[in-house]
C-alpha cells in the first residue's frame, strides 16, 4: 500500500519543475499510474523518460509498497 502523495513528492523532487499526478488504478493502493510532464524529458527516448520516473520511486518498488507502476510521460 503506497502513500500516493509521498510518491508524487518523490517524483517531483527528482524532476524539478515537473507536473506529477499519481493515481491508484485498481483501488488496492499498490497498482499505480504516474502521469508526469517534465522539462527533463525533452529529447529523451520514452524508455529513458520511464527510467527517470521509476528511479525516483525505486525504494517504494523495492520495499513492496508499489507492486505495479504504469507511467504516462511527456515533455513539458
Amino acid at each position, binding site marked *: 500500500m503506497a502513500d500516493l502523495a509521498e510518491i508524487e513528492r518523490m517524483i517531483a523532487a527528482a524532476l524539478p519543475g515537473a507536473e506529477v499526478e499519481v493515481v491508484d488504478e485498481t483501488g488496492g493502493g499498490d497498482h499505480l499510474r504516474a502521469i508526469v510532464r517534465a522539462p527533463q524529458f525533452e529529447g529523451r527516448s*520514452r*524508455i529513458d523518460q*520511464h*527510467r527517470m520516473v521509476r528511479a525516483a520511486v525505486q525504494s517504494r518498488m523495492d520495499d513492496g509498497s508499489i507492486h505495479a507502476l*504504469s*507511467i*504516462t510521460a511527456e515533455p513539458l
Partner: protein
Amino acid sequence: MPANPELKQKVEELLRDNKVLLFMKGTPEMPRCGFSMRLVGVLEQLGVEYGAVDVLPLLDPLREVTGELADWRTFPQLYVNGGLVGGCDIVEEMLETGELAGLLEVEQPEVIAAPAAPEPADPQQSPPLKLG
C-alpha cells in the same frame, strides 16, 4: 546481486540474433500475463517476426540480467536491434503514434485493435525456457 554471467551471455546472444525480441511471461501461444498478451497482440498486428523468451522459469535471474543490460527489471520487455524499446505502456503508445511501425520498418495498420483484456494468471507450471 550480480547477474549470472552465463545467463547474461546467453541473453546477449539472443539480442544479437533476434532483431525483434520479446521477453514475456508465458509463450505467444499461451501468455500468462495480461501485459505480455497485449505485447504479443501488438507484434502480431504489425506482422513482424520476433523471438519470444518465456521469463517465468528464470524470473529472478533474468531480472538481474536485464537490470544490468538495460536498467529495467519488469517484464514484458521488447527489444529491437538489441536495444530496449519498453514494456506494455510504451509499446502501445508507440503503436498508436506509428513510431513502432517506423522502428520496425513495417506499414502502420489502418485500424488498430483495442488491447485485449488481461486474464488472470494461470497457476499451472509454465513450459521450459528456451535460451538459444
